């Protein structure tokens, strides 16, 4: 549809001059074609068709586009947008077009024996794959799942279990594993309610159809169950957050790790009535440092993506603390108004770099906080939409303005921070954003109808862990004993 040709016919409709821009080099418009007169009542679909027309981009197959005006998506007609923002119809509107999002369609589910508490991915684009460098074999995309039965499982793309960790009697975790992460393509760290952090060596057979997880190190030091874990591959550091509020820093290096505190070792209590015969072949070590910055259960901890000497920890005592790992000192405290259950870091390219911390709360929303010491406003944005506690977060691998969250309400939600609006007074003001996509649990599709209103949101389908990878997509695991994989590419408009 050529608007210039259609102009006489639509004479009565107001025309608005628009200027198309884009940041994607492959979608640049020819010079002189960027300015157009479009009818005022045109919407996203019309604009997208205009862009795809022969006179414009002349694409072979139509590419759906989204349009950004002043950094926010155009959701209404142009006319309505101008009215809502009090802009003149005479002025030229600059529309930035980006590829439109494709819903994160369901791809696969991997069934477990027990609830899945945490997931991690290994691929060439994932963090562990990058850290592995040359060691990573192309195509060796794996999923690591931690389960409440105390086992770690590694899955390949076809949904087969490549490796399972040893059971408790064989040196595995003696209680539920709450979190597990790939350190590299051959190393896995896990932690759980048995208060230990375990480092596993992961080795695959040559056909990449089977593998082994061998415990290489048992790290003792926490006196309460470990809720969360983060790893930094290049330095071999592991961070753990325990439910008594302590944060542990550990090393995967057997030699540099200090000795384990004897009192915490299994069998230390001779009077324990139930002495398990533990075939512990793995050496036992202690923490590099163990601090207790929090007064309540620490629920999440992570390394700064850019600087491995800085850690951020979130706790149920409402705070996010910045910890300098070299000195084990708390550098900064961000106090929110709710108990925090999860944490992830978003890189920020603009504004002097740094990260933006997203923390999931038990009040069903996600708080975005600026961890810099000198930040004027610590609370940046609130993401609202979950119906239950937000238990896990993961940043998008593609860009800096989107993330995925997992919640007890049985959904994962994908958020785009660009689509923010001003919060109402009831919401406490500030910028508020809503989710772009909602990923339901595939296992609950059939049971949806029987749900009544009074039910607890996400009954029987709580999601405990989520990971987002460019090649894997969105991987989440939860109470339904499934690891669910959803498509994760091109979900959000790039800019």
């Amino acid at each position: 549809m050529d608007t210039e040709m259609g102009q006489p016919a639509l004479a009565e409709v107001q025309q608005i001059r628009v200027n198309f821009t884009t940041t994607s080099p492959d979608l640049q418009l020819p010079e002189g074609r960027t300015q157009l007169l479009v009818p005022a009542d045109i919407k996203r679909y019309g604009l997208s068709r205009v862009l795809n027309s022969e006179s414009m981009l002349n694409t072979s197959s139509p590419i759906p586009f989204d349009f950004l005006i002043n950094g926010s998506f155009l959701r209404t007609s142009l006319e309505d947008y101008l009215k809502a923002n009090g802009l003149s119809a005479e002025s030229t509107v600059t529309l930035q077009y980006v590829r439109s999002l494709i819903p994160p369609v369901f791809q696969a589910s991997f069934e477990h024996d027990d609830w899945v508490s945490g997931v991690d991915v290994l691929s060439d684009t994932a963090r562990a794959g990058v850290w592995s460098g040359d060691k990573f074999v192309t195509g060796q995309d794996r999923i690591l799942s931690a389960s409440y039965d105390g086992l770690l499982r590694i899955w390949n793309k076809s949904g087969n279990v490549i490796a399972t960790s040893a059971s408790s009697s064989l040196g595995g975790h003696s209680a539920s594993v709450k979190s597990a992460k790939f350190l590299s393509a051959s190393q896995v760290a896990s932690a759980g309610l048995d208060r230990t952090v375990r480092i596993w060596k992961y080795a695959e057979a040559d056909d990449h159809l089977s593998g082994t997880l061998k415990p290489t190190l048992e790290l003792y030091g926490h006196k309460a169950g470990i809720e969360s874990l983060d790893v930094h591959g290049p330095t071999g550091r592991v961070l753990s957050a325990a439910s008594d509020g302590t944060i542990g820093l550990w090393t995967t290096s057997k030699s540099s790790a200090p000795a384990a505190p004897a009192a915490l070792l299994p069998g230390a209590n001779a009077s324990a009535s139930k002495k398990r015969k533990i075939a512990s072949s793995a050496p036992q070590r202690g923490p590099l440092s163990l601090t207790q910055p929090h007064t309540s259960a620490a629920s999440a901890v992570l390394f700064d993506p850019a600087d491995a000497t800085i850690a951020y920890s979130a706790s149920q005592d409402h705070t996010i603390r910045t910890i300098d790992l070299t000195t084990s000192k708390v550098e900064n405290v961000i106090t929110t108004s709710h108990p925090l259950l999860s944490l992830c870091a978003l890189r920020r390219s603009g504004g002097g770099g740094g990260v933006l911390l997203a923390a999931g709360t038990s009040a069903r929303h996600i708080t975005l906080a600026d961890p810099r010491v000198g930040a004027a406003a610590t609370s940046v944005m609130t993401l609202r939409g979950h119906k239950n506690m937000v238990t896990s977060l993961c940043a998008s691998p593609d860009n800096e303005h989107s993330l995925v969250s997992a919640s007890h309400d049985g959904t994962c939600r994908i958020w785009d921070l660009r689509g923010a609006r001003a919060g109402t007074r009831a919401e406490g003001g500030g910028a508020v954003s809503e989710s772009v996509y909602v990923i339901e649990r595939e296992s609950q599709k059939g049971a949806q109808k029987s749900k009544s209103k009074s039910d607890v949101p996400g009954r029987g389908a709580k999601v405990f862990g989520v990971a987002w990878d460019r090649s894997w997509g969105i991987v989440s695991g939860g109470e339904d004993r499934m690891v669910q994989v959803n498509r994760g590419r091109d979900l959000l408009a790039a800019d």
Partner: protein
Amino acid sequence: MAPTKPSLKRKASVVEANHADHPQSDDEFGDGLLEGVLEDESDDEESEVEDDDNDIEGDTLDADDDDELDSDDIPTDDEELGKKQLTNGAESDEEDVGPHYKIETDANGGTRYVYDEVDPVYDSDDTDAQEPVNTIGNIPLSFYDSYPHIGYDINGKKIMRPATGEALDALLDSIEVPKGWTGLTDPATGKPLNLSQDELELLRRVQMNEVPEEGYDPYPDTVEWFTSFEETMPLSAAPEPKRRFLPSKHEAKRIMKLVKAIREGRILPYKPPEERQREEEEEEEIHYDLWADETPRPPNVMHIPAPKLAPPGYDLSYNPPPEYLPTEDEKKAWEETEPEEREKEYLPQKYDSLRKTPAYDQFVKERFERCLDLYLAPRIRKNKLNIDPASLLPKLPRPEELRPFPTIASIEYAGHEGRVRSVAIDPSGQWLASGGDDGTVRVWGLADGKQQWKVKLSSEDPVDVVRWRPGQETSIISAAVAEDIFFMIPSFGNPELEQTSRDILDAGFGYATNGKQLTTANGAARKDPPAKWTRPGARLEDEGVLLKATVRSPIKSINWHRRGDFFCTVSPSGQRSSVAIHTLSKHLTQIPFRKLPGLAQTASFHPSRPLFFVATQRSIRCYDLQKQELVKTLQPGARWISSFDVHPGGDNLVVGSYDRRLLWHDLEMSNRPYKTMRFHPQAIRAVKFHRTHPLFADCSDDGTLQIFHSKVVSDLMEGPTIVPVKMLKGHKVVNRLGVTDIDWHPQHPWCRVASIAKKTKNTDILVVCNTIQRNDDVSVAQPPLTTEVAAFSHVVEFYGLYKEGMPSQASKDHARFYGSQKDHALLKGTSNGMNQAGTNRDAKETDYRASKPDARMP
């Protein structure tokens, strides 16, 4: 007047004399008017009449003038004649004047003068002396029948009986009846009574209805005795009375009146009417404008103008449009209705021209009705009270301002096969223990809802109560199954914690004999100790159940002392041993009360002081464990208390009852409730205070639980503020059992110290008794409702998920609460007085029961 009696005598005696001397009576009867009668008549009756008349005359006439008048005024010819005769008679008597007596000798030889009969001179006044008068008095003459005489005269001489004729004479007499013969005998004289000619004439006249007196003219010509003509000779020689020549005072008074009236102008001289009218016209009228300077004012506030009549409409026209004319039916209906009930008082009628319109016959009536309406219909301005009802309600903070409080269900802990009877959150706030009808105790991760530990204590009996031992250094669960109390240590992969817990449980075995010592110390030869403390058996010991205490009857309630060494159990059916206080460190069980009034329901320790509360069905007793005495008896007024909880501050108590009441007690104030709330349609099962936040909640069989914000201030003048903030629904009611137990998440201690943020997470947990059809579906639903959730419930609203009506519910709670608070204001007013009155009684009771509590607590 005087002569009545003598005249009677005279009459009786003298009849003839009357006839003979009839002019004698002239003097006596001087009355001119009766002259004619008197002359002819000498009858007794007549004379009486005359006397009377004479009397009357004497009365009326002046005494002086009588004689004169009589003599002078009535000079009749007859009288003059009589007078002449009288004088003649007198003259004859005077001639033979000599000695009037003869001298005789009487029987004694003395001289006796016998006087001659007095021959009264004619003109003498003595009328009695005219003839011999019988002096026998008033006795019948028959007494003298046998005598020749018939009496005596005045001189004592016999009056001889007149000779009676011979029978022949009598016959002759009878043949030759003289004129006036009556055949009667005059009793006075004994002679035949004959009537005279005059008497006969009189009788005839009477019979003939004529005037008895002959020649009497009933209609004589008027004699003008007193005329206006002045006689030359006055009738009276009386001097002119004084008044004739003195001016009359009365007249002077009347004249003065007139003078005054004239002076005042009330009496005007006569003027002809035309002249007067002219004058009046000439007189100029002066008018005053009273309202000349009046400024218009607004009408009085109470003024209500009379309602105006509506202007006439088309139907009042003489020629209305046809649509206004009534149909036949309407006409009929109008005529049939009562005049008072008619909508309109007229029927529209059509006339061809205005000329043909008749006079309005209802005009007068209509005007009259209108006047009645205006006059009788009261037009009163009613002052409406314009009070906003909301302003009368007490000021309560809005629930939104009282955040945080739990608002929605967030986690369900599924796994129990049967009813869940009790829940408890561990002191660290990470675990949730629950016990139910399936005989198991389960421990769940509070945050994720994952069952972490489970033990089956019994296959028959349900787990009635589950309670954690206070203190974070251990993790010991106490659970009651029938008569047994089990102590268990769930394993979370924390050997140190387990070890300390184990040590604490095992410590008491060193005192294993204490039970026996206690019984002997009590002096009572009890067969079995209050409780047996044993190992539960190898199977349970392997699973973490390390200790068992068995009491005498099934336990329904366990409450720990804050230090974690003592706990109390209540077994309502336990008679004397229903309330027991156990010492865990010594495996010691004591029965503090030998007797309780009523069935014990639950018991609890005071959060800070050595006080012990025991709830029976109707009252709660507070005992001091150190002094071992009754401190206070609370009377909540409930019929069956189900549970109570002591405020962490220690001064307040909230009681829930099976009769649907929730009662707030101020321990300092009264033994009556400070506030009674009746919000639940079903029995209240449990109430619980939050340990750190100003919140409490109750749960009910109706499947709901209500969250209250309760602000307790230290100011004694101000009572606690209780605001219902939220009603949580969603629990299913199965077999009329709703929510059975409730517990709050404990608070983290740092909050008091740091006070950076408001608080940490607090989670309240409740358990539904769900017995759904399929066995494995039976689940515990315990939504941990976080405060944070509450704070942002508007988010939910924004996304349209607020449909459950949370705000409206809150406001409804609010509204309901106002009612009760008003009640309570009254109640509070009265309870103060009652409190004072009750103190004495309390004191007495305290004395009386001082020896009762048998607590051996250190």
